[in-house]
């Protein structure tokens, strides 16, 4: 609690006891009470006193004055602010409305009510202030990735500077426990880095000389000397902070609705109160009935519950996501993400690693190792990714002297002389051209590289792009999170695409697409989706900027260090883990649920109390609950988002 909140608490306690004291003062005083107790030894009801001919004296002005004391203790600041704001031309503010409502209650003789309503209002304000304070603190913690200083080596000396003052090319020293202040490359030292603040990944990452390091990570074990590669403003940490801080500027539709609602709600309720106080009373003359009802209206007229809790929910959602390494560039995208119906994936780099490797070896005559060796030797001069993958599967240094004449046959494969024998390695077309009988094509996924030695079929190698770790689970989780359709786009041939799609459990795929076809496919899918649902496109941020911007929501993944991807996408997954996508969707859904709950609850309770007040079924207590009570509940509900793990 801050000192201001403590002061408020004391005022509440003091005023509460003064209120009880005032309430304990009897309404009327009995003269010569001592005499009665002496005489009969028991209490006698006042009615009998009157019968017995005694006069009852009223406390008159004393009792209202006794109530005024706790009222002023608890309400002086509200009254003062009301006066000050009227002077500034701010009529419809909360302070003024509370003042009118409570003074009104006292004027019509409901002293205890007037004080209690003010007291309850202040208790609510205190709760609200504590809740806001706590939320602000968790937001500040969320943003607490900014490095405070950098240890720079200048002229052989180590000086501590603001990261903004460090130039590119300078050398900085990062000790264990410190945050890396700027993006750079390690010159000396090895250590483990905690990247949790950026990626949400809890496992430390090992780094050594020559490797790039990213600002915002915490150095855990060894001392690092780092050469600065980017000024602070362009460093990862500054960019992320900038994104998170500005993300609340892109407001969601729910937020615009609340702003508009707040603008019209208060004046409407205040004028309704005025009408309620004046019109029926002029007609029927029952001021005592209608004025209290109108006062209730004034108490309910502040839209604070919504104005605080809705942005707080969004902020919590955005913040919770960023702690997981999911950067969402605005509340509007969070809102849109909650309505995800279709997710479209680019295959290479998103669902698969984009690295080819030998997955299976099917020899006919030789041992698997020999078959691989023959193919590797024949392919060793080729730079094709598939040839490279065969070489790396073989795992030995190339042996040029064992290979004689090599002929590359474009689109088919190679023909080489290895250890004096003619080795053919390539696709089906190559074998057919050389008249080598092939066995039936098997069902294995990937590119088949057939090998023939001296005119006899030797077997085949299967080369495939490997699925990303977690891709299958991510797709499964997306379905569970309510995504209806998943689609994969790829430049691969139909068979490979079908196989990968089957393995992943993806609903649809579009194969043999050229990069420019992807935009058209996404546009077709955009037309097919049902209204009210959004299409998410997930890519690796390389070469797919047009598609990212065409989709309702563009998600780039593996973006740590890739500026282009951060620029182009609406949502950025900082690390390479596709499983973050369903997490993002569920955070979005949860945020929107809370936003809806709060909107319906706050407007509902306020409306209900307004109606009941107009009918005379609700007292001022209910009205105060509908004002501050609802605010506190809504804030507490919204702050659930801040704890999202």
């Amino acid at each position, binding site marked *: 609690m801050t000192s201001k909140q403590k002061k408020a608490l004391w005022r509440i306690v003091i005023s509460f006891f003064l209120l009880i004291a005032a309430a304990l003062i009897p309404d009327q005083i009995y003269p010569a009470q001592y005499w009665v107790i002496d005489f009969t030894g028991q209490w006698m009801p006042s009615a009998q006193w009157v019968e017995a001919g005694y006069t009852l004296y009223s406390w008159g002005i004393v009792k209202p004055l006794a109530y005024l004391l706790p009222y002023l203790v608890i309400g002086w600041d509200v009254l003062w*602010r009301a006066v*000050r*704001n009227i002077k*500034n*031309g*701010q009529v419809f*503010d*909360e302070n003024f409305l509370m003042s009118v409502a409570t003074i009104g209650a006292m004027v019509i003789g409901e002293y205890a009510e007037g004080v209690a309503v003010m007291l309850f209002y202040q208790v609510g304000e205190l709760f609200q*202030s504590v809740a*806001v304070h706590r*939320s*602000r603190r968790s*937001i500040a913690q969320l943003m607490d990735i900014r490095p405070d200083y950098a240890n720079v080596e200048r002229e052989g000396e180590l000086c501590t500077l603001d990261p903004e003052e460090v130039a590119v090319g300078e050398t900085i020293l990062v000790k264990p426990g410190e945050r890396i202040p700027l993006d750079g490359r390690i010159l000396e030292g090895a250590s483990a880095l905690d990247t949790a603040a950026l990626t949400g990944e809890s496992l430390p990452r090992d780094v050594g000389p020559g490797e790039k390091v990213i600002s915002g990570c915490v150095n855990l074990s060894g001392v690092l000397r780092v050469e600065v590669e980017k000024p602070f403003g362009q460093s990862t940490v500054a960019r992320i902070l900038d994104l998170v*801080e500005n993300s*609340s*500027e892109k407001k969601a539709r729910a937020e615009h609705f609340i*702003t508009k609602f*707040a*603008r019209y709600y208060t004046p409407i309720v205040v004028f309704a109160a005025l009408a309620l106080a004046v019109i029926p009373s002029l007609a029927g003359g029952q001021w005592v009935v209608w004025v209290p009802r109108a006062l209730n209206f004034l108490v309910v007229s*502040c*839209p*604070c519950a919504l*104005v*605080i809790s809705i*942005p*707080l929910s969004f*902020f919590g959602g955005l913040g919770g996501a960023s702690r997981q390494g999911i950067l969402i560039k605005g509340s509007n995208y969070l809102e849109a993400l909650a309505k995800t119906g279709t997710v479209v994936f680019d295959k290479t780099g998103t669902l698969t690693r984009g690295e080819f490797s030998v997955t299976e070896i099917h020899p006919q005559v030789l041992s698997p190792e020999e078959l691989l060796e023959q193919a590797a030797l024949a392919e060793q001069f080729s730079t094709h990714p598939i040839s490279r993958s065969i070489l790396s599967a073989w795992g030995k240094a190339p042996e040029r002297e064992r290979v004689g004449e090599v002929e590359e046959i474009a689109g088919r494969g190679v023909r080489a002389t290895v250890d004096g024998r003619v080795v053919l390695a390539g696709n089906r077309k190559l074998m057919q051209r050389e008249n080598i009988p092939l066995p039936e094509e098997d069902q294995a996924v990937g590119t088949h590289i057939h090998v023939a030695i001296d005119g006899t079929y030797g077997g085949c190698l299967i080369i495939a792009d490997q699925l990303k770790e977690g891709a299958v689970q991510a797709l499964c989780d997306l379905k569970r999170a309510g995504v209806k359709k998943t689609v994969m786009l790829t430049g691969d041939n139909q068979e490979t695409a079908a196989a990968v799609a089957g393995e992943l459990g993806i609903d649809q795929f579009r194969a043999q697409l050229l990069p420019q076809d992807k935009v058209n496919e996404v546009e077709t899918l955009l037309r097919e989706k049902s209204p009210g649902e959004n299409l998410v496109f997930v890519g690796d941020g390389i070469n797919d900027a047009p598609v990212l911007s065409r989709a309702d929501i563009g998600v780039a993944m593996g973006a740590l260090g890739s500026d282009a991807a951060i620029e182009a996408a609406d949502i950025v997954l900082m690390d390479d883990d596709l499983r973050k996508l369903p997490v993002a969707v569920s955070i979005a859904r949860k945020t929107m649920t809370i936003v809806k709950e709060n909107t319906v609850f706050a407007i509902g309770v306020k409306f209900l109390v307004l109606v009941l007040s107009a009918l005379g079924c609700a007292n001022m207590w209910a009205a105060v609950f509908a004002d501050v009570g609802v605010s506190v509940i809504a804030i507490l509900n919204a702050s659930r988002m801040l704890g999202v793990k």
Partner: protein
Amino acid sequence: MKKTFKLEELDCANCAAKMERAIREIDGVTQATVSFLTQKLTIEAEDERFEEIVKKAAKVCKKVEPDCRIIIK
């Protein structure tokens, strides 16, 4: 030019919304946001008149919420 200022003692969310609206109406301001949660005011306005506009914004804020201060460095 776009600049962010810290706000102190911003205690009421509705006031923040009112301030935002009032600052946007100042002549020369292209965009203004008041974030109740981060207690920050961002003003985007014409370069030449920026100082003057910030002063006006401070005045407007004072009018809406007298306890609230803009920290101008």
